[in-house]
């Protein structure tokens, strides 16, 4: 409980924790939004979500090896991961789209393992980072330090989310995706190529993850097996917010980021991830209790 009194004695610590949490939380929200998209449209629960994030990170890392600034990896990762997502859909996911829950869980779990092992083979097991070199901001008489890349990543994550939302609302394909998520059969009758919609949705999600991974590589560290923790976070956020609730996903993402920081400050760093998993448990129980009858759709 000493740690709580520290927080009350030095309020600036709260600011540091809150800022750190919110900035990273935006990236969690981005990953979670991708998960909700795929979940809502194809009903596939993608357990490889976090591993797609790691792939994006390694694309940024590989580019730094070639002397290219990791920031420029953002468009590259989006394009490459979109193609990768498409490929995975065409080879694996389309076979499990209308199968039961466990088939799709097993399939995506398998993809996660393959991705992890491939990354390990190519890049080795040591943690990697991509340095942005963007400098560090100091505020409140040095009581608050924030690396500029975190701030940039925060706004980029929000901007990306906005782009995806606009795409879903305005574009033909976006409308088709939403239609398919509401009623795939009806959409098919209306002439929508649902298979293509599924493929694009899955590819879009991979691209979102790739972008998130690039940002993560510049903020934290990446490692072939670290993807799982991002998958879990994404599941926590989506289960807390619901599938069709973008503001909810963003709020839950930011909240989770902040909660992790405060939780690990007060309880110790060993609880940082225990908090996430514990929270998932709590949310599941609450959801079970108040299980609503209304259908959830992607908006």
């Amino acid at each position, binding site marked *: 409980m000493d740690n709580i009194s520290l927080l009350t004695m030095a309020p600036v610590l709260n600011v540091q924790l809150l800022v750190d949490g919110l900035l990273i939380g935006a990236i969690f929200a981005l990953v979670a939004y991708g998960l909700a998209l795929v979940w809502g449209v194809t009903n596939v629960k993608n357990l490889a979500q976090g591993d797609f994030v790691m792939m994006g990170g390694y694309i940024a890392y590989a580019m730094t090896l070639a002397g290219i600034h990791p920031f420029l990896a953002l468009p590259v990762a989006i394009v490459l991961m979109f193609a990768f997502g498409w490929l995975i859909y065409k080879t694996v996911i389309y076979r499990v789209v209308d199968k039961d829950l466990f088939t799709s869980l097993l399939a995506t779990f398998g993809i996660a393992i393959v991705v992890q092992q491939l990354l390990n083979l190519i890049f080795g097991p040591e943690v990697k980072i991509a340095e942005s070199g963007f400098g560090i901001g100091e505020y409140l008489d040095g009581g608050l330090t924030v690396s500029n890349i975190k701030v940039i990543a925060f706004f980029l994550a929000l901007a990306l989310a906005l782009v995806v939302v606009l795409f879903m609302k305005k574009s033909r394909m976006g409308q088709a995706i939403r239609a398919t998520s509401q009623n795939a059969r009806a959409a098919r009758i209306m002439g929508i190529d649902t298979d293509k919609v599924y493929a694009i949705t899955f590819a879009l999600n991979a691209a979102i993850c790739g972008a998130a991974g690039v940002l993560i590589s510049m903020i934290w560290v990446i490692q072939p*097996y670290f993807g799982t923790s991002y998958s879990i976070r994404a599941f926590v956020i989506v289960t807390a917010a619901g599938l069709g609730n973008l503001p909810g996903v963003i709020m839950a993402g930011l909240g989770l980021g902040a909660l992790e920081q405060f939780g690990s400050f007060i309880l110790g760093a060993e609880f940082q*991830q225990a908090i996430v998993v514990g929270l998932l448990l709590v949310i599941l129980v609450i959801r079970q209790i108040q299980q609503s009858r209304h259908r959830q759709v992607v908006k």
Partner: protein
Amino acid sequence: MTNILLNKTVGIVAGVAAIGMLASAPAMAKVEGDTITLGSAISFTGKYSTNGIHASNGYNLAVRMINAAGGVKVGGKSYKLAVKYYDDESTPARGAQLAERLIKQDGIKFMLGPYSSGLTKAIAPVTEKFKIPMVEAEGASRSLFTQGYKYIFAVLSTSEQYLASSIALAAEIAKKNGKKPGDVKVAMAFENDPFSLDVRAGVVDDIKKHGMKIVIDDKLPRDLSDMSSTLTKVRAVKPDLLVISGHSKGAATAARQIKEMKIKVPLIAMTHCEAAKVISKFGDSTNGFLCPTQWSETMSYKDNLFGTAGEFDAKVKSTYEGYRNVPYQLAQAAAAVMVWKDALERANSFDIAKVRQALSDTDMKTFYGNIKFSAAGNNIAKPMALRQIQKGKLNVVFPARWATNEVDWPRK
């Protein structure tokens, strides 16, 4: 149809028979002609492959040097050394399997260790079961030496010594500045895994000995990628010494966030600085970090085979491509082979009981450090050293006997 089936069956039977014959073929004896074959399951692939390859390079280099210098003399005859390797794929279960295969099928009587404490822990019960002595160079966990094993001998310092010297250094600095060691505040962040908890145990023992205060005691998660909340705490409580151990991910995460959060602690000690390449990644912000090392090429150890530590360093660089710095993992592997030569010559026999006795009587000086085994099998004659990052270079600063430079205090 039946024919095809029959053919298939015959094929399978023949295959099984062939495998059976292979398995029952005369086992390669431990000493054949003029060659003594040592055996090792080591990680050529998988997550430990980098260091597994370093270790095998060390084994091979020592074998080559010993053979060039006349080999091993037993019973008046000169024998050449050779090593039989299997790839354990960095998985403990596979390592144990392969150790059994080396002993039972290949008839290996003298083992070299694998890479990492985890693999050594998996293999030790096997060598123990078959009463085959193993000289290992890469398993530092102290739990290896609390099981009552009789056939394991380790040339390296055990893990609880890794950062303990940073506590001694902090106490020394406190005294120099006219303060009591008891006033020193220590912040600790250790990963929740067997290795780091060993390191922590050693640190805590020494903290108690000096009566220092522990102000932070965080355990970092296994897939650690953020320790900013711990560092926020560090900023608040202003410790005199920050100690971190969490493999290379811990070192990389800590170095990145210490830089980003502008953490100013007079002394910071962490394991795996080199593996995480913190200097090249984070530049000046890592100046002053203390990094423990089993061995450094600047130390004044020497022997008759390789010469000084510096000469060993040069030899590795001229033999293998791609080494700008020689990792201690390679040096200690070479030392393990030297222990075998020494023990076999003193035993003057290939009788396992005599060889084991000779191993446990080992008291030798090598380029890597002095080697003398405790009853439990760990090396008690070689201390850990601390190097400090000074202007982008790692210089030995502690203990004073091996120091090439003064410690920079406070850092920056």
